[in-house]
């Protein structure tokens, strides 16, 4: 090969590298290892973690443990899905493009919105992009976020807006209602951002806030972190939301220690909205023979064409996670999703009854889907660590998300994966550490 190229050695191909930066030997890292050696080392690391399926598990706050059917993982490991790139050549990417089109339709249906994009990195970045999109659509600069939106989502939004002209106001997290958000809406407001179920698990009716926001010309961004809830509760699109964003991890994706996940992004079918939407879009068209097919479309919004005037710098989305989501959703269908949502809710009701009956423990929520908040007689962080010590993964202390606040509050989640025995073990352990 070197002869064909006309050089004497590999080194001759690296002569453009400045001499001072050429390395003589190897970088100071271990050298190659066999598959077996690597597997041993990685397994040892993995074994230092307590897997969710190996303990009574009640941790949520934006990521939830659900059962993912075996079919999903098999299909996403098909070479043709796993090792394909972004579908730039549509004639040999119809598999990816049609599944994205199906994904967009399912997301739109689930959220009660008109259209959805082909996914974002995760729920938090979808939320941040929605805030920026609302500012572009309304040509306004004030965004009001409810304090009960997942604090990581608020922080990600603040980061994206930090050096733009968008100013984000965050209301206090404590009130159970949205009155503080409503009070902030004025003629300069681009959008209000509200989450339901919120970080404490409480459900909100968005009709009133939507009416008031729309009167002032502001958009409503509805956030959800538990997509399964939409099997049972009202969709944001049916409560006046203009943009719905959320985390899709619950359907098909798994916990993965926080990522990769899949951001869902849907909005109204309004040319102003769609042209300001971030991310990729699959659209229907026909081929030269008139047969139906799909392409990536409206790319002029995107960075590879629009460069410094793009709606977002996003390039890669979360394709494989979107595929997993769409396969799981296809397996569920409306019937399965509704049943799954009900099972989650019922398990949470039983958990609330079991924990709420422990002396000194109060269930704070008036309403919830599969997650609620407890007020404990002692520091929740300490409680969680003591529970872990006895083999129970008992929720997220609210202070982990709101440092220095809500120190006795514990956010607990229940899903279809929790058995009555799990609940009994948790209740007994919690009573024991208080």
């Amino acid at each position, binding site marked *: 090969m070197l002869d064909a190229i006309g050089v004497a050695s590999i080194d001759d191909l690296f002569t453009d590298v400045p001499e001072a930066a050429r390395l003589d030997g190897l970088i100071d890292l271990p050298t190659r290892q066999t598959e077996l050696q690597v597997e041993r080392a990685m397994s040892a690391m993995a074994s230092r973690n307590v897997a969710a399926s190996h303990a009574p598990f009640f941790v949520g706050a934006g990521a939830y443990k659900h059962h993912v059917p075996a079919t999903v993982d098999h299909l996403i490991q098909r070479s043709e899905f796993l090792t394909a790139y972004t579908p730039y050549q549509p004639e040999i990417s119809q598999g990816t493009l049609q599944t994205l089109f199906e994904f967009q339709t399912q997301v739109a249906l689930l959220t009660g919105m008109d259209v959805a994009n082909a996914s974002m990195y995760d729920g938090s970045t979808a939320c941040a992009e929605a805030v920026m999109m609302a500012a572009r659509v309304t040509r306004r600069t004030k965004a009001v976020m409810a304090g009960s939106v997942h604090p*990581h989502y608020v922080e990600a939004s603040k980061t994206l807006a930090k*050096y733009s002209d968008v100013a984000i106001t965050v209301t206090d997290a404590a009130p159970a209602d949205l009155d503080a958000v409503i009070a902030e809406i004025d003629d300069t407001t681009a959008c209000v951002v509200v989450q339901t179920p919120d970080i404490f698990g409480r459900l909100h009716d968005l009709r009133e806030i939507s009416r008031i926001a729309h009167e002032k010309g502001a958009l409503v961004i509805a956030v959800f972190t538990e997509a399964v809830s939409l099997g049972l509760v009202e969709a944001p699109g049916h409560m006046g939301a203009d943009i719905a964003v959320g985390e899709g991890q619950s359907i098909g994706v798994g916990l993965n220690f926080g990522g990769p996940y899949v951001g869902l992004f849907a909005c109204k079918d309004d040319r102003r909205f769609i042209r300001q939407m971030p991310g990729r879009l699959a659209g229907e068209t026909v081929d030269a023979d008139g047969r139906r097919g799909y392409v990536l479309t409206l790319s002029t919004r995107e960075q590879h064409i629009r460069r410094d005037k793009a709606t977002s710098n996003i390039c890669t989305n979360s*394709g494989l996670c979107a595929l997993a989501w769409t396969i799981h959703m296809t397996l569920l269908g409306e019937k399965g999703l509704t049943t799954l949502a009900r099972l989650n809710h019922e398990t949470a009701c039983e958990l609330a009854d079991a924990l709420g009956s422990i002396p000194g423990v109060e269930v704070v929520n008036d309403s919830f889907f599969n997650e609620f908040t407890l007020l404990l007689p002692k520091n929740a962080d300490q409680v969680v660590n003591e529970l872990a010590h006895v083999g129970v993964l008992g929720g997220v202390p609210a202070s982990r998300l709101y440092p220095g606040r809500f120190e006795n509050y514990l956010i607990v989640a229940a899903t279809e994966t929790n058995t009555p025995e799990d609940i009994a073990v948790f209740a007994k352990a919690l009573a024991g550490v208080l």
Partner: protein
Amino acid sequence: MGMNTQGRPTRMAENIATGGYADTISGSRGLDQAEPLIFERGDMDRCGVDLPDPKGLKTRLGGQERKAPIGLPGLAEPETMRHYVRLSRKNYAIDLGLYPLGSCTMKHNPRLNEKIARLPGFADVHPLQPAATVQGAYQLMGELAHWLMTLTNMPAVALSPKAGAHGEFCGMMAIRAKLDADGQTGRRRILVPESAHGTNPATAVQCGFTVDEIPADKTGRVDMEAFKAKLGDDVAGIMLTNPNTCGLFERDIREIADLIHEAGGYFYCDGANFNAIVGRVRPGDLGVDAMHINLHKTFSTPHGGGGPGSGPTVLSEALAPFAPVPYVVETAKGGWEMVEHMDDAEGDPFGRMAAFHGQMGMFTRALTYMMSHGSDGLKQVAEDAVLNANYIQARLKHVMTPAFDGTCMHEALFDDRFLKDTGVTTLDFAKAMIDEGYHPMTMYFPLVVHGAMLIEPTETESMSGLDRFIEVLEALATAAKDGDKDRFLAAPVHAPTKRLDETRAARQPVLRWTAPTDTVEAAE
């Protein structure tokens, strides 16, 4: 003799009809099976998942029950399997053949990575579990950080960026934060070569900068005179891809770094092409202040039809204090902890980029790949990638036209001069490659080259595989020059679909399935 006269005919019939049945009754074409949308196949009562019956408890939803059906169809498990397996067969993939998309680094994805990422200790762990129950996950992040910092000779790395563009955002935010902290509020201009990825200017604007483009010189590299002329006290920095998008190493990179630093700005390196130099050159030795690393390119995590990616970003001493939260630190007792809040951080983080801690599933795969290869194997990765690209360039330069003279790094860039007066465009040439069983190269990028064709074979192609590919491109180039235009204009004719009407898709966007109107009327 006893003779069995029954059974199937074993001879080809004579005078067999060979044409006239191109259109099938079903729309399928043999193994290329037509597959409708799930919305045209499934129904709302079908379900492919085993679930127990709910008990019918009274709900506590605060009156928020959904009122109307959602409209989501379901399929049974075997139907679901067929639907997606059939669709998968309409995709090209690395596992099917050479995938020479320049700048995208479509290398083989080792399956050990997939196995490791699925260990319950990694895949089935929640990001907000108590620290004592996730020490292995923190350790993995710590080890990955160590590998990335050592390979780049940089003192810090932010692991949380979720893709390359997100990593660019991280690095540019750190530069902006540093400038603001030093009171350099007049520095808002970012220099970006014309050949840059579109994400670069988009990112710079996202961080409140303006973009000033630098032209390329005739060797395909930064025009040094133009660059020097643009320096000034309003310059915040430069975003430079190296090796650049023309597949060339920026020879003057040290001087560029020195000049930008002397001018008071910072050097952001787009690390999309790190795979060309990993193990051989450390960006920290080139004067880089920040660089994202696409784990899905250099470190072989699968592209998955468009993500997920992962874009850890290394930072220099000057920028490290502004790194985003969260990050892991090793404790005095040999354990690990996660710094999650701005107030708990040692420096002055510019913020949090996303929920939780980053793309753990990509971290496990990338570290598995790094450990498998080691420092010696990674060096060979870069060398073989560069060798393969040069082999393609050398073998094709007599029929195609390399955009620039000399050897290249990991990708070979051609322009469309060899197609002049053939009536065949870069697009047509690319589509003809589809008929030959190959995915086309990146086309019309970088923008500085007319009708660009950017070929990145990667290191995971054998010489015999490259020879077959080269022979096909040679034959196609010859066919174009010989006036066999129709082959190109009609292409692809052997793909699952012919060329698709992108104008129609953009003029009348159909972004979702909707029920046919007559069905709606019938339902009413």
